Each structure stands twice: as C-alpha cells, then as structure tokens.
C-alpha cells in the first residue's frame, strides 16, 4: 500500500512539474538512428583556439523528398599533422527512423576546418544549397538534385583567409534573391596563438580579447550565380567585431530584415535595415550590447522570436558560465529589457555555459519554448570552480504563456540529464510525426539526436515557396489564428550557434485540429490569406 501511494505521489509530482502533457520525453535515438558522426577537432596538444568552438549542424531536406536530412561541419588536422582524414558529413533520412551516411555520393567528402553552416536556396532552383564557414576559406556548395558542387570560386566568394563562424541567408534588399551574411571571429593563426591559463599551470583555451577582430561580411546576390561584397556600402564594416552567433529578425517590425551579431568580448551589434540597402547600428542604445554594468561579455548563440505575442521579436543570447542567458524582451520602442532574472531562465543558466539555442514549441501548446545546448570551453575550469563543470546537461524552458518560463529539463526524460560538452543545436521534425525533435553536437564528440515523444497536441507545419520572393520564403511573416488566439513567426536562416534548424514553420495548435485563419506577408509585398487550414503533414504554401 505504501509503495502504491509513493508511486502515485511521484507520478503526481511529475505531472505537476510538467503542466499539460506529462508524457513528453526526449529520447536519445542516436544509435538506433545510425547517426555515427563524431566531431574531429584536430587537437594534438597545443590547444589551438578554433578547436574548442565547433561543430555546427543543420537540418536540410537536401533531396527534396519531404524528410529532414542532417549535415554536420567538421574539423581536420592542423598543418604538419597527419593523424586522420575527417570531412564534412551528410546523413540521408531513410524515412524509418534511421539515417545513412551519403557524404561521398553527395559530393561533400571535403576536408576543411569547418565551423558553421547556413542552408538556403540561393539560386532559387528548388534545391537547398549549403554555405559552410571555416578557418581559412569558406565554401559554397550548390545543390543540383541531391549532388553538391563546390562553386565558391565561380560565385565570387573565394577571398581572404578568415576565421568565420555563424552565417545566415537573408534577402536584405528584398529583391527576391538570397544574400549572405557571414560572421567572423578573430585574426588568428597557429603562429600567433597565445598562451593563457585558467589554473596557473596548464594552457587553456583563451578568451579572444588579445586578438584583432574581424568584420562581418555581407554578400549581395547578383542574381546570376555570383555575389559581391557590399559590407562597406551597407554600413556593416566593423573590424572590431568578434562574431560567434547571428540572428536575422525584424526588430522594429518595418518588414525589412535586421541583423543581430552576438560578439565575444566586444559589444553585440543590432544592425537595423534602413530599407535603402544599408544598416544603422543601434545595439548600444537598445540595451543588448553590454552587460548591466556596461561591459562587453561573451556571446555565443542567439535567437529571436515573439515569445510573448507582444508583436515584436525578443532576443536571447547565451553567455558564459557565472552569467545568465540574456532574455532581452523587445519593448517595442527600441529598448530591450533583460527578463532573464524574472524568469526561471536566469537562475538556471548561471552555472552553465550556453552555445546553441533556439525558440521552439516542443509541446505544441502555441507558446514558444527554449532549448539551450551547454558545455564549457576548457576542462580546467573544474580546478577553480566547484559547481561549474566541463560537460553540462542542456536546458529546456517551457513557456508559461505569462511572459515567463519554467525549467523543465528534469522532467523530459533521462537523455536530457546527460552532461555533454554541447555546441551546435537545431530543431527539425525528422520522423514527420508533427512535433519538433532536436539534434545537438558536442565538441570533439558524437552528435546527439533527441526524438520528441509523447506530444498529444497538434501542429500546423508550413513550407513556404516564394515566387517573386526568394524561393525559401525567408523573411516571410506568418500569422496563424486558432480559437481566437494569434501567433506570429518569421521564417529565417541562421540563429542558434553555427547551426540551422529546418526551413519549416511549426505552429502549435494545442488540442485544435486546424487554424481558423492564416496570413502570409511575403517580402515581395504580397499578402496571402487563407482559412480553415487543417493540421497534419506539412502544408506547402506558394506565393500567389
């Protein structure tokens, strides 16, 4: 009898901890899925700066069969070292919960010290292409019916050797073709690698303040398969930036895409699009550039979304350990106020170092939740701090719909309790069951595929196809109304850290089976409306 009562009490507690759908669990299906990717850092004892940063991951439907495939960036040996052959990796979704490594067949068996990835159909031919950032030469891989070709040179993207990190596709001038924004970190070579130490004895991975920064680069699509560097003329040239994360958002809701840069030991930047081919930097005045003491801090992962239905996208930026995740609420007047302390997000993220992060509705109740991949940059941190560990479990925060969040990591299954050295993270519905799964990478370790199970709510999943707008539909704003409640999301590339989530919008409908009305505002200016859109599968909506 006692044990029955105990069991009832325990299950009651876990039900209460997870108001709504107590059955939701994230299951680690990496092994059964055959996802064999293991990150290679090239480390051989010198603790070179780039080694601790990667890798990134993207969900991409590279063969257009309606199932999300997975792409991973990877490192390689440093000059003079010949320990292993390591390349980028592409895994094709077999539609049955498993994946197959198709890297070679797809033309992606390329050795490059890669970090980030951005997925976008830059030539509007219906196949999603890949832009891969690297220490050295970034690469553009054009996808033609499932086979990739390195077109970096022809596209005019071959240039100076840089240390590039996150990147995003966006149509900044709204001419119907995707342009490319690329974040750069610091000017670094093995020869200028600096010594620093956390504990006074061993070398550790250094913070970047002693290295010169490097400007973000904006490449405008010339619509003929080539790009031109318009960084300076667009007002984005800033050689002091040390960018790790990039988010595209419409901060002031004027329908022109703005750019947020998460910079490390330099102020974060918020570039507001002026609608005339240029940008103005408003990060300092807006309150997102610095810590509350007015001092620049680390900034790795970033995402933007209207998580409280205020009409404006708010911003989250992951920070170092001993610091909170920043949850900058957009006040709608050009000011952002950090709501992290007031929500469970602040307290829980003090002892973790966050990298990849994103807003996503994991329980499909219509309110955007948060996922954060955590992991420190150097194992020596455990020698001088008691609670901060090198490997750390991720965070999941459930949106309580009152402008706040609650930490629910503990009640979503054992896989989420596992400490890892997390880096990239992305969401995607890889098993096509209507809810959002998560893939995470670890530094120097395996990827992790977490399948979302037990969701009973319904979703409306939308694939956009632009006609005058860029084919992906990036920049389009979709408003979904169900039962008198309206949600707004903008489809975009980038966000998180070195990674990209699937190019599909997911709206949680709760227990409802359809959206009463739906509106798409395309960057071309066109507005499409429809009503009674049923849940189930992925709805493809083409710009009329």
């Amino acid at each position, binding site marked *: 009898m006692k044990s029955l009562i105990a069991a009832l009490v325990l299950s009651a507690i876990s039900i209460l901890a997870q108001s709504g759908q107590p059955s939701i669990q994230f299951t680690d299906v990496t092994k059964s899925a055959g996802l064999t990717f293991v990150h290679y850092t090239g480390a051989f004892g010198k603790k070179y700066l780039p080694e601790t940063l990667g890798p990134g991951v993207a969900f991409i439907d590279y063969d257009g069969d309606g199932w999300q495939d997975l792409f991973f960036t990877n490192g390689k040996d440093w000059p003079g070292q010949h320990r292993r052959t390591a390349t980028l990796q592409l895994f094709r979704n077999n539609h049955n919960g498993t994946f197959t490594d198709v890297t070679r067949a797809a033309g992606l068996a390329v050795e490059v010290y890669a970090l980030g990835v951005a997925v976008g159909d830059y030539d509007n031919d219906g196949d999603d292409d890949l832009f891969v950032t690297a220490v050295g030469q970034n690469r553009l891989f054009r996808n033609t019916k499932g086979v990739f070709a390195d077109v970096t040179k022809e596209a005019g993207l071959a240039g100076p050797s840089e240390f590039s990190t996150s990147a995003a596709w966006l149509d900044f001038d709204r001419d119907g073709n995707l342009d490319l924004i690329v974040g750069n970190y610091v000017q670094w070579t093995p020869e200028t690698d*600096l010594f620093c130490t956390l504990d*006074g004895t061993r070398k550790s991975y250094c913070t970047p303040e002693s290295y010169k920064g490097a400007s973000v680069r904006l490449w405008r699509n010339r619509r003929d398969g080539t790009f031109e560097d318009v960084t300076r003329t667009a007002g984005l040239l800033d050689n002091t930036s040390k960018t790790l994360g990039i988010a595209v958002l419409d901060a002031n809701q004027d329908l022109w895409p703005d750019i947020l840069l998460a910079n490390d*030991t330099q102020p974060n930047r918020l570039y507001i699009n002026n609608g005339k081919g240029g940008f103005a930097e408003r990060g300092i005045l807006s309150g997102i550039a610095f810590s509350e003491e*007015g001092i620049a801090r680390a900034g790795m992962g970033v995402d933007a979304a209207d998580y409280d239905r205020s009409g404006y996208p708010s911003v989250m930026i992951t920070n170092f350990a*001993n610091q909170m995740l920043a949850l900058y609420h957009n006040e709608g007047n*050009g000011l952002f106020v950090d709501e992290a302390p007031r929500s469970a997000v*602040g*307290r829980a993220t003090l002892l973790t170092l966050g990298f990849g992060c994103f807003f996503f509705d994991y329980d499909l109740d219509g309110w955007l939740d948060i996922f954060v991949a955590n992991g420190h940059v150097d194992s020596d941190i455990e020698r001088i701090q008691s*609670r901060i560990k090198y490997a750390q479990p991720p965070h999941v925060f459930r949106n309580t719909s009152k402008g706040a969040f609650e930490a629910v990591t503990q009640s979503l299954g054992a896989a989420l309790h596992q400490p890892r050295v997390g880096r990239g993270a992305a969401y995607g519905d890889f098993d096509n069951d209507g809810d959002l799964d998560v893939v995470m990478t670890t530094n*120097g370790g395996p990827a992790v595929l977490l399948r979302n199970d037990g969701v009973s709510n319904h979703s409306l999943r939308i694939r956009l196809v632009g006609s005058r707008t860029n084919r992906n539909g990036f920049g389009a704003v979709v408003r979904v109304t169900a039962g008198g409640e309206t949600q707004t999301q903008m489809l975009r590339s980038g966000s998180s850290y070195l990674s990209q989530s699937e190019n599909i919008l997911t709206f949680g409908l709760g227990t409802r089976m359809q959206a009463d009305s739906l509106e798409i505002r395309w960057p071309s200016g066109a507005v499409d409306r429809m009503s009674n859109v049923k849940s189930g599968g992925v709805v493809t909506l083409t710009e009329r």
Partner: protein
Amino acid sequence: MKFLQNNIVSVDIFGISPVREVKSSTASLSGPQLATTFAVGEEADLQAAAGDVEVAPLMGPLNRVDAVVTPGETYRVEVVVRTRKVGHFFPGGTVDAFDVWLELQASDDSGRVIFWSGMVENGGKGPVEKSAHFYRSLQLDGNGNPISKRNAWATRSLAYVRLIPPGAADTVHYRMTIPNDAVGRINLKARLHYRKFAWWNTQFAFAGERAPGTAAVTKDYDNGSWVFSGDTSTVSGQIKSIPDLPIVTLAESSATLKVDQPASTKAHGLTKVDFSDWERWNDYGIGLLLQGDLKGAAAAFTRATEADPKNPDGFVNIGRARVQEGDLDGARAALDKALALSPNLARAHFFYSRVLRAEGRYEDALAHLREVIAQYPRDRVVRNDAGRILFLQKKYAEAIRELQNVLEIDPEDLQAHYNLMLCYNGLGEKDRAEEHEKRYLRFKADESAQAITGPYRISHPEDNNERQAIHEHASAVLK
C-alpha cells in the same frame, strides 16, 4: 622610511602544497594534452610529462603547522600580501613607474640558495628580474611598446594591472623544487620591496638619449630605442649622475620547512584551524577570490569560519565566492548564517540582494539594498545596483533618480551613464538618452584596443604570465 615601514602592508608565507603527477581518471574529451607550454625562466626548456597535475591539499598556515618537504619533490608556495593602512589601491598614483615587487628566497641550512624570485640584477643596482611578481600597471602604447617613460599620453592598451585594493589581499604562487641533496631545513623569506621609480625609467630620466638612426616619436607610440649616454653633469639636483634609488622593504615574512626522506614523509595536506589564524585564512581566501579561484577561496573561507564560527565575515566571504560562481542556493545558505550572527551587517545584505535579484525577486533585493544605503549612502556600487533593479522593473523615472545619486558621487561613473541611457530610452526621451550615451562612450574602455596586447604577449612571456589572473613564478636563478 618610517611611514613606509609602518605596517601599511604585510606579507605572510601562508602555506605550501605538494604538486603531484596523478593518473587522469576522467578522460579529457578534447583529446590528449601536453602539460603547459609555460615558458618562464628556466622552465622554458622543460617538456612537462603528459598526464594531469593535481595540486594536493595545503600544508598551512606555516609557523602554525610543522610543514615537511621531501627532497626531489615540487611544491607550490603560497604567499599572501595584505594591505592594512592604505585607504586606496596599493600602490597608488604613478603605478606605471614604480618598482613594487615581491621577492621570495629559499635556502637550505648550508646557505645555498635553492629558489630565488624577485632578485635585483647587477648586485641590487639594476632592474628587478623580469619574471618577478610586480604590483603595477603595465600599459602599452599604440604600437605595443611599454609605457616606461611616464608617457601616459601614449597609453592605448593595458597588458596587465595588479594593484591590491584597500583592506584586501593578493595571493602569490611560487613553484619550488627541493633539491635531492638539501642540507638541513629549507628557510623561506618573502619580502615586499618598493623603489620609487623603476630602474629603466631612472636611467631614461637622467641620461636617456634617442639612439641614433632610430624612428621618431609620435604622439601614439614610440618605436625608437634609447641609450643612457646622456651628459649628467647638468641634471638638476645635487647628484650629477644617474642615482641609485634606494629600495625600501615594506614588509617581510619568514618560514621554515623540515626536510625528510620519502618513506617517512606524509604526502597529505596538513592544516590547523586556530582561532588566532582567522585573518590568515581569510586573507589567503581573499587573494584567491580576487584571482577567480572560487573553489580555493571558498575552501579557505570555510577554514576561517571553523577558526571563528562567530565571525560573520567568513560566511559573507563564502557567500561572495558562491555569488560570483552563480551558485545562488549555496550563497543564500552562507549569507543566512552571516545575518544570523550579525543582522545589520551591510556586506551581508549587499550580497544577499545580488542573490535575490538574480532570482527576479526585485522588491526583496531592493529591501536589502536599502538597509545598506541607510548605512552607506555614498556607496555608488550599491546605488548603481538599486538603480539597475528599478530599471529591470521598468520603473524608469525612479531608476533615474537613484542613478543620479551615483553621478553626484562620481560624474563619470560608467555604469550609471549606461543605465541612465537605457532608462531615458525607455521613457522615450531620446535626447537625454543620447546625452548619456555620449558620456558612456567617452568614459568606457575601448575593448578592441586589447588587440594591441597580442603581439606583446607573444614576445614577452614573463609579462604574459603576470597577466594571467592565476599564475606561478619559478626561480629565476640560473644554475
């Protein structure tokens, strides 16, 4: 001299830890690592063996416990420097030009010197050897040359700054190996020295001349070199030569270590917690806290609370270390103990408010801050915290009033200008917001200027070592 030697600072050879090679039980996820490429002094050529190096528990406080060392073993010696009768940072003023440094010497009973850091070259007349532990501000000009001629107008970046706040401490680490043939005991002596101007500056000031053919000085940097061949017969003052500035020893400390053979040596830590050593433990902890060794600091403060469970500051300091780490629950537990012992202790209330603010309990945090403000109305750190909380509550007008208090104390306070900018932005008063933005940008550090330190750090490994918050000093004596 009397003033300088009047116990304004003190030195304490606090303890030693054996440094042991241990088998790594937790595999490093980033692959095999060689130990440090630490290149200071004679260790520059040492290829450290692979494997983790653990710092074993402490033997201390010295002169309270009977510390025993083993021939052939290596130890970390911990020396604590504490400011006592100084109302400002130590040193203060011309911190670019002083020679203030800590010297540690160890010899065995035969008089043989087995360790020496911080000696003065050329029989005490030359510069301090460059791998010593200095208290100074090492600034760089626009091209990464050190500011060594009182040429502050050319300062563009900071290689490092190490000054001890008033009533605080610095914990210095030395790495010392006991020779296999040590005779008798090991006698340690630490001394804090002061010389009004660094040797190079004195040579330059009296006899400095531009080396022929050297680049011209610019207002942003000096890439040229200097020779000390100037004619000193016309210098002002009575000494018509480059003077030999006196070195004053401000404080010193001694300790003795027994030497014993491996078989009979306890390889474990050995500490004694005595009521009268509260301050020694606390000072040691403060030095570790200020370096960011939060683990070591919390352990030292815990010892202090064991030495005197009725002294609330030990618990406050545990709380501080935990607040800094982000361990809110742990901080609260420690601060609760402090407040139970001393309900009006402003320090405890201050850190308590930090815990509450991080939890979003803004009203409660403000209540604790008001306790502090009642006792210290002109503490601008506290006023800034209060202003920031009001901003987070979006009570912009109230926040502005609070932050104005800070500007009345210091019109250049960076944090106040930053938050005032945001508050006025929140109120929609763009002009006012931009006024404060201007001042904020004017007074803030230029983060990107730190890039000047990169090449300097590579070419000056000793200064790079000094820059590390936690670092060690090896013996500079060449064998």
